[in-house]
């Protein structure tokens, strides 16, 4: 729930509350004079889950470690691309189909850097960040299994040419 201390332009929030994409984009740009490009990603809870139609889901995290893990991902992105600001907001707790669940925003003077860093952050969030998803549908609750596809997408970035 806390906003860990980072370089001023990198921010993480893991929270139960919903978020406002316009306010987040405004915060991302606050104090900026050079931005040419902002790429964002918003993830929504799907109605079709891994196994069944999903009415609600529960997202669990590891308080402390989850934020640290996302900080590490942000710092890695800032080392790879010329970023001006990058921010991750991830919701936890009980969520319903159609709810916003994750937002990633990246500001850079270069649009290619903004896109690449935003996609990189999402791939790593899906693959490495400690979140666990339990889907609750007509057949009852079940924990979602890790998908090999997410691991493959994150692995792309390990190639220095990525």
């Amino acid at each position, binding site marked *: 729930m806390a906003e860990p201390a980072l370089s001023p332009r990198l921010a993480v929030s893991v929270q139960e509350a919903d978020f406002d994409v316009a306010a987040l984009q405004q915060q991302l740009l606050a104090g900026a004079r050079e931005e040419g490009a902002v790429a964002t990603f918003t*993830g929504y809870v799907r109605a079709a889950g891994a196994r069944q139609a999903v009415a609600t889901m529960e*997202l669990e995290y*590891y308080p402390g470690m989850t934020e640290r893990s996302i900080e590490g991902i942000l710092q890695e992105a800032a080392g790879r691309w010329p970023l001006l600001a990058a921010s991750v907001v991830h919701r936890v707790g009980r969520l319903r189909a159609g709810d916003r669940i994750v937002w990633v925003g990246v500001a850079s003077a270069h649009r290619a850097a903004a896109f690449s860093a935003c996609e990189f952050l999402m791939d790593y969030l899906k693959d490495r*960040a*400690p*979140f*666990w998803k339990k889907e609750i549908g007509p057949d009852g609750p079940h*924990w979602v*299994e890790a998908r090999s596809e*997410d691991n493959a997408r994150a692995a792309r970035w390990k190639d220095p040419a990525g």
Partner: protein
Amino acid sequence: MLKVLFFARIREELDCPGLELPWDPAVADLDALQKQLAGAHGQRWREVLGRDNTIRAVNQTVITGNSPLRDGDEVAFFPPVTGG
């Protein structure tokens, strides 16, 4: 003292979010701790903590393989992460 945490399916199956263990020099690495936990709480714990795909973290860093433990460490056991 070791602080032990369980998350997600493991937490649910053990019906336990975590526990604190007094420091025992005979349980001074991750494998020894997992074996001790699996053996001391009955069949259910043996099954759940015997799974291959359990991920272990020490002081909020994921450890691949075994790792020594020190008095005061925080150790977590959790299944593979599944993102948002």
